[in-house]
């Protein structure tokens, strides 16, 4: 069985997505259980995959039994296994956490919703496992399409935001497609490993350079890297809370993964860091991204929008770390993919609970929240601390690696940007926490505070949130092991140690 994990990983959710869409027309109530079952299988097999990868180096799976480069092959190494686990676990937790709000928001279209939800997860997983650049494009489009649909069902300006996302996303995808076209024309292959083995002879070819640049632009568009981030805030703000708590943690992170995959596997590290003279400018762009993200977040007037700009900043973290071109930076970037996914999920779930309860996510809706929804707020605080980077939450440790990478690379601008954004995060989140904490109080500090009743969200929403919050700390405490056993093998020796 275990050698078929890679196939199961993608086919099980795919088949169940189809099943859901059929069942949705016959017997709606079954949709949710099927989705849960599917994603549990996925989570199980992805964890199994991670463990088996940790033993033998990397797993190759030939689809259709054809030898790569003629057939399509899965290639699962430590990096992809890690991201797989993150994606499937986040997807599962969010699925369970948001069941209630889905029932409320789409009473008639639950079938369609869960179909798209599971398809989205399928696409993300596929992107992560595949070892073929064109296959990656197809899966990219699956995630994109389903994403458009899910986002557009939000309130007020959601369709417009989603349409803009369609434009930007399509441009990004087209650029990526064009890039791999250039790769194909110069190497004649579509298999990542194969391309990587052919490229060294072609380092000086302009076509390869152009291919690299075009692909990078495309991917940067998709992951909302600073100058190209314009679509993200609206899309994620207006999306239904159940959706934004799915796409916000996963989409950008998986795109970061794609970038790393291109940098490290397809275009070999040697080419990326020594032949393409882009490292410094990318790091500086990242610095700007972080700074702008922080500043724009300050200007935001509601929680969701604020968080979306925080995401823009976080993308800057990872891109910057990856382009520092040293071991610490790369480790930090990879570690931050997992950590950031978790903490983004945490804060968005908390916001989701609040929206479910008070039907709003403006700052003022938070008044007296600590008394109304203590557990949700504690979850929010945990996420906030992780975003700020307070030990022992995991956010601190990835920041640790990123900063020390910056110090080693002598990129003090990057270090400064990271510190700056942590300080801004303190302001951002404590502004929220203050509003929630200081209720409109009477003059007396007596027992007058029982005016606000406790009205916590249902358990199915609170428990996953608290699990995630706990996970933040666990990730932090076990950072050492994760780095040693999962991330260290990924970082290419070309980046020194």
């Amino acid at each position: 069985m275990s050698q078929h994990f890679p196939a199961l990983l993608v086919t099980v959710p795919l088949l169940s997505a189809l099943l859901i869409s059929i069942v949705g027309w016959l017997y709606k109530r079954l949709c949710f259980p099927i989705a849960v079952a599917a994603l549990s299988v996925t989570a199980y097999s992805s964890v199994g995959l991670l463990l088996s990868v940790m033993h033998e180096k990397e797993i190759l799976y030939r689809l259709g039994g054809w030898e790569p480069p003629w057939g399509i092959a899965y290639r699962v190494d430590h990096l992809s296994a890690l991201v797989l686990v993150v994606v499937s676990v986040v997807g599962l937790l969010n699925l369970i956490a948001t069941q209630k709000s889905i029932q409320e928001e789409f009473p008639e279209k639950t079938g369609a919703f869960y179909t798209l939800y599971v398809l989205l997860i399928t696409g993300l997983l596929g992107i992560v496992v595949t070892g073929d650049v064109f296959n990656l494009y197809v899966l990219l489009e699956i995630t994109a399409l389903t994403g458009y649909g899910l986002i557009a069902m939000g309130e007020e300006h959601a369709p417009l935001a989603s349409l803009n996302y369609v434009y930007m996303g399509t441009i990004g995808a087209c650029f990526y497609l064009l890039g791999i076209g250039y790769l194909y024309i110069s190497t004649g292959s579509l298999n990542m490993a194969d391309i990587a083995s052919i490229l060294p002879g072609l380092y000086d070819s302009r076509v390869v350079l152009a291919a690299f640049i075009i692909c990078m632009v495309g991917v940067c568009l998709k992951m909302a890297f600073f100058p190209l981030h314009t679509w993200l805030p609206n899309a994620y703000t207006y999306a239904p809370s159940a959706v934004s708590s799915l796409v916000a943690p996963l989409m950008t992170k998986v795109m970061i993964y794609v970038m790393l995959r291109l940098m490290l596997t397809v275009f070999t590290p040697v080419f990326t860091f020594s032949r393409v003279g882009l490292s410094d400018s990318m790091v500086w762009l990242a610095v700007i991204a972080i700074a702008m993200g922080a500043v724009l977040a300050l200007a935001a007037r509601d929680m969701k929008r604020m968080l979306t700009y925080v995401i823009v900043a976080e993308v800057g973290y990872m891109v910057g770390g990856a382009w520092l071109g040293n071991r610490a930076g790369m480790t930090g970037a990879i570690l931050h993919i997992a950590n950031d996914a978790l903490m983004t999920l945490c804060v968005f779930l908390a916001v989701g609970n609040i929206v479910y309860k008070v039907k709003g996510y403006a700052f003022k809706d938070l008044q007296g929240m600590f008394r109304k929804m203590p557990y949700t707020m504690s979850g929010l605080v945990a996420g906030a601390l992780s975003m700020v980077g307070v030990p022992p939450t995991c956010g601190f440790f990835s920041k640790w690696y990123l900063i020390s990478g910056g110090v080693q690379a002598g990129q003090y601008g990057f270090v400064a940007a990271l510190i700056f954004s942590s300080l801004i995060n303190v302001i951002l989140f404590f502004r929220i926490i203050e509003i929630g904490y200081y209720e409109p109080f009477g003059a007396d500090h007596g027992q007058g505070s029982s005016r606000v009743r406790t009205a916590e969200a249902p358990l199915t929403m609170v428990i996953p949130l608290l699990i995630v919050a706990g996970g933040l700390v666990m990730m932090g405490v076990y950072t050492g092991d994760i780095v040693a056993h999962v991330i260290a093998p990924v970082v290419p020796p070309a980046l020194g140690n």
Partner: protein
Amino acid sequence: MSNLLSSIVDNYNYLIYIILMMIGLYAMIAKKNLVKKIVGMNVLQTAIILFYVSIGAKKGATIPIIQHGHGEGAHEMGASVIKAAEYINPLPHVLMLTAIVVAVATLGVALALAIKVYDRYQTLEEDEILAQIREK
């Protein structure tokens, strides 16, 4: 420089695709009308399809369908006589079948979204929509 020119001249098809693609890109960025943007999007995708297909071309080769050998057991006798040079490269065409389908799907979704947008604002002109949003 001269070799650049010559390469451009005998690669005029690539030149055409670049021009097409730029048109599409420009439309997507500069046009105010949402449907015009969608049209631009399709032009962009078509340009890339053109690019791929022209990769597949091969001098003195025909379409990649093996003339002889029909039905069952054709492979035993068919195998030996086939030469790669006689048939054009099938791979780009395969890829483009996929790309076309993806383009269609994207178009469908984009149109659906456009309809929703129109329902909400009673217009498809971006600046008018933004004006509406602002005054709210």
